[in-house]
Structure formats: C-alpha cells, structure tokens
C-alpha cells in the first residue's frame, strides 16, 4: 500500500517543484471539412471543432481536481490548413478567413491555443501551400490564439530552400504587422525540419494526415522536479547523476500517462502519445538552464553545456520510455530563451550566444526557440539561420525548429516582454556578415546520404 512518504514526495513535486501536466492537446482531423466553397469550409471547421472539443476544458479541470495536479494548458491541433483550405482558397486573404474561424472556434471552447495553421513543404510548394504561407503574417496579426508552423525540410527529402527564403521574409513581415505588441506574432510561428505529426506543444502542433479523426496527446513537464532531485546528488559521478534523472523522468511521465488515459476515457477520444519533454516556464525553479547549472555549469552556455544537455536529454528519454508505451511528439529538453529564467540570466551574463544555442540544438529536442533578435536583421540573414538549423535536423535525423522574433524598433541590449508563458527576453546579437548570395540561389538542398556516417 502507498505510504506517507510517497504521498508527501508526490505532493511536494506539485506544490514546491512546479510539477505539472503542461498540456492536453486534442488533435482533430479537418480533412472531412474540405469543400470548394470557402464559406462552407469555414462553417464546417467551426462546427467540427466546437462539437469535438466541447468538453475538453471542463474535463481537464475535473482531472486536475481529482488528482490535485495542475494541467496548465488545454489546446487543439488541427490538420495543416494548407491541405484543408486548398480547394476553396484562391488567395492569401481567403486563408486568413480560416485562421479567424479557428480563432473563434478555439475561443468558444475556451482552449489556450489552437495549432495547425500550417503547410508541409519539405520538397515543394503547391499554390495552396504558398498562399497559406503568404497569409501567415496577416493571419497571426488578426487572431489571438492561432499558431502557425511550416515544415521546410526533412531527412528524406532535403531542404526546400525556396521555402526557407520565403520564410525569412514571412518572419520579418509578421514582426512588422505585430510591431505594436513587440512583434508577438513571431512567437506563434515555427519553422520545422522533420516536424512530428503528433506534437502536443505549441506553437508547432498540428494534427498530421497519418493520424486518426481525433486523438489525445499529452505533454508533461517538470524541470523543477529534476533539478530538486539532482540537488541531492551533488558531487556524485555520472552514473548516479544519470540514474537520478532517469528515475525522476519516469515518475513525471507516469503522471502524464495517467492524465492522458483519464482524459481519453472521459472524452471518448483515443489516446495518442505522451510527449515527455522538459518544458520550462518563466516561473522561478521551472528552468532547464537551472538543471544544467545543477549538473555543474556556472551558467548555461559555458563549455560543457552541449555535453550536459545531451546527457540530460538522453536520460529523460530513457526514463520516460519505460513509463509509457506510447511516447512521441518532440520528447526531450526544450531550450527556449524567453520562457526560461535561467537561460535569460545566461544571456544577460554574456555566457550564452546564438552560436552556442545552435550547437545545443544538435543534441536536444527542437531548436532555436523564442530568441529575440534585432528588428533590423535582414530577411536573408533570418533565412540563413533557418537553413543552418534545418541542416542540423536533416543530417542528424531529428526534429529541429526555429522560432525567432526580430523585434521591430529594438536592438541589442534592449529587452522585450511577451507576458505569460512566453516570458521576456534580452535581444541577442546576430552575425552581421551576409548570406544573400547563398539564400538567393533558389531550389532545394538534396536529401543526405544515409550511409557513410561520420
């Protein structure tokens, strides 16, 4: 039988160490909403979302009460809209109406975010894909909780450099259209390589075409729990360190598994996957960078950071995989800058640069995330940064992503405040040398060879 010590341990994780379930994300397929009449598409989308997700928020709150575990976000992901709207939308403005419908439907059911305003263009773009991409700045500026993502490369197809070039311009335009809110629109736009179909985390969530009609995906979190566990093994060797991370990841993931199963049962929607990521928040003690410090670094970004992060990421996976039979999504440690107080401190102390962050993305999940850069950064430079990050994903057969915010009207040394879970960030300097000729070549980078690994 459960003993008092175990009960105390669990409750302390929740009360003192910020253990939470980060998100219950309901994936909804909108493929059956396709129609050649734009008004009908919008109507069908609204009806399907508001019907299927009607009880999502209430169910989430009920599960919170039953187990006394906070479920921070309730979200929806939908089929990439470029596929759903392709038959009806003849221009970018048509797509914007769908974004507004998604926003309205999501607000009606009371979720925090809706993701899937997306296009998958890793090899080429259809005219619908291009129209959707060109509509992103307006779509994000005229909605509040819609999130957008574009997959521009994969290990199997290579990198679509035309799309990479275009995305540099789109990021700039989104920043410009949302400049009154410190270019907040860019915080809702992710550019991916090897995007997973079942990721529950925003802003990159979408409901892949290989998925069922509706599915529950759950993202767990708990950097604070890992940090507290590591405080007890200071000075011990790597074996003890790894064992501790693994055990903690196991416990955290089990909670996610329980919540996912319960939500699936109550909503009568099949359970998809657990995403066992360590997702930080700006709250003190909920930081991935603090774990790196606890492992033995003065600041995130110091020499040894990449190795420490690699170890952390791998142990989280090893512990989590034992805890749930269906692990998917991104699953690893997130290293967003603005959402992690420890990362912000590291940038402000001069310990962490964009280049070091890029190296860190080689060994952790996702990539250059929530990084504020000067508003006058050129579109081609942003495309260059995207291309670098996509190349890391393509060659290493992993998901990588870019979420950069060129803050209009601000430069290095200034700070930008996004509020809530998105946090705040010091603006980081960007390498000033040009990559115009590289980005302007056009075409695509071929898929890499899958042998001769070195």
């Amino acid at each position, binding site marked *: 039988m459960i003993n008092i010590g175990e009960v105390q341990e669990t409750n302390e994780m929740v009360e003192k160490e910020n253990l939470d379930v980060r998100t219950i994300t309901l994936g909804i397929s909108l493929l059956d909403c396709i129609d050649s009449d734009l008004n009908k598409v919008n109507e069908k989308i609204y009806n399907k979302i508001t019907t299927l997700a009607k009880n999502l928020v209430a169910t989430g709150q009920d599960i919170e*009460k039953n187990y006394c575990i906070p479920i921070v976000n309730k979200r929806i992901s939908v089929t990439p809209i470029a596929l759903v709207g392709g038959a009806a939308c003849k221009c970018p403005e048509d797509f914007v109406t769908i974004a507004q419908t998604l926003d309205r439907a999501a607000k009606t059911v009371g979720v925090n975010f809706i993701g899937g305003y997306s296009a998958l263009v890793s090899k080429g773009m259809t005219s619908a894909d291009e129209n959707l991409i060109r509509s992103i700045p307006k779509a994000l500026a005229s909605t509040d909780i819609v999130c957008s993502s574009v997959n521009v490369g994969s290990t199997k197809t290579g990198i679509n450099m035309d799309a990479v070039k275009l995305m540099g311009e789109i990021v700039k335009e989104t920043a410009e259209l949302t400049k009154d809110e410190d270019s907040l629109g860019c915080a809702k736009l992710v550019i991916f390589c090897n995007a997973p179909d079942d990721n529950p985390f925003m802003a990159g969530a979408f409901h892949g075409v290989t998925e069922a009609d509706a599915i529950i995906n759950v993202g767990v979190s708990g950097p604070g729990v890992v940090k507290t566990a590591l405080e007890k093994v200071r000075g011990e060797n790597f074996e003890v360190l790894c064992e501790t991370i693994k055990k903690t990841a196991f416990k955290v993931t089990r909670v996610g598994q329980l919540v996912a199963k319960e939500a699936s049962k109550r909503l009568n929607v099949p359970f998809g996957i657990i995403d066992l990521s360590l997702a930080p928040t700006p709250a003190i003690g909920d930081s991935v960078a603090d774990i790196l410090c606890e492992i033995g670094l003065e600041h995130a970004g110091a020499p040894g950071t990449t190795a420490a992060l690699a170890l952390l990421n791998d142990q989280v996976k090893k512990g989590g995989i034992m805890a749930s039979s269906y692990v998917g999504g991104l699953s690893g440690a997130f290293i967003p800058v603005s959402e992690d107080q420890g990362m912000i401190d590291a940038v402000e102390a001069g310990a962490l640069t964009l280049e070091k962050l890029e190296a860190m993305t080689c060994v952790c999940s996702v990539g250059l995330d929530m990084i504020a850069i000067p508003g006058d950064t050129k579109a081609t430079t942003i495309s260059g940064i995207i291309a670098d990050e996509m190349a890391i994903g393509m060659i290493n057969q992993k998901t990588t992503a870019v979420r950069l915010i060129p803050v209009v009207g601000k430069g290095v040394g200034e700070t930008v405040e996004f509020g809530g879970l998105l946090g705040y960030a010091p603006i980081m300097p960007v390498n000033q040398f040009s990559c115009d000729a590289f980005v302007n070549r056009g075409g695509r980078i071929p898929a890499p060879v899958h042998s001769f690994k070195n």
Partner: protein
Amino acid sequence: MEKAADKVIITVVGKDTVGIIAKVCTFLSESGVNILDISQTIVSGYFNMMMIADLGAATKSFSDISEQLDQLGEQIGVSIKCQREEIFEMMHRI
C-alpha cells in the same frame, strides 16, 4: 450521482491542534466513507496525516467530498487534500 468505487488518499497538513482527526473522521463517517488506513507524523509542531479511504459506499460524489473537506480544512486551520489513489500508484509502483 457520480459514485466512485475507487480509493482516495486524504492528506491533512498544518499546525497541530486538538481534534483534527476527530473532525475529519466525523465528516467522513457522515459521508459514508470507509477509512482503510491512517498514518500520522508530527514534525516540529506540524501535523501531517495521510488516510487511505474507500468511497465505494459514499453518500456523496467525489467532488462534493473534496470540496467539503477543503472547507473543513479552512475551519480547522489546516490544509486538507483529497486525491484519487492512482496518481501515487502510477508514480511509485511499476
């Protein structure tokens, strides 16, 4: 009414005072909740109790019991939590 045959864990944490267990147990007995196990410690004046209880024959729903325990806790000046047992089983047992 939602009736749960499941086991719940009730934890009481707060400054020690006379009659905490009595009040909690009286409430549970009035609600038809069967107590299976109680363990308790006092660390530097702080009262820490855990109960495993069965709601199988309860006359109230889980959410009512949970809410009323919360109110009872406020009256006594301690924090009372009522959670379904699975969260602990999942976390601490393979």
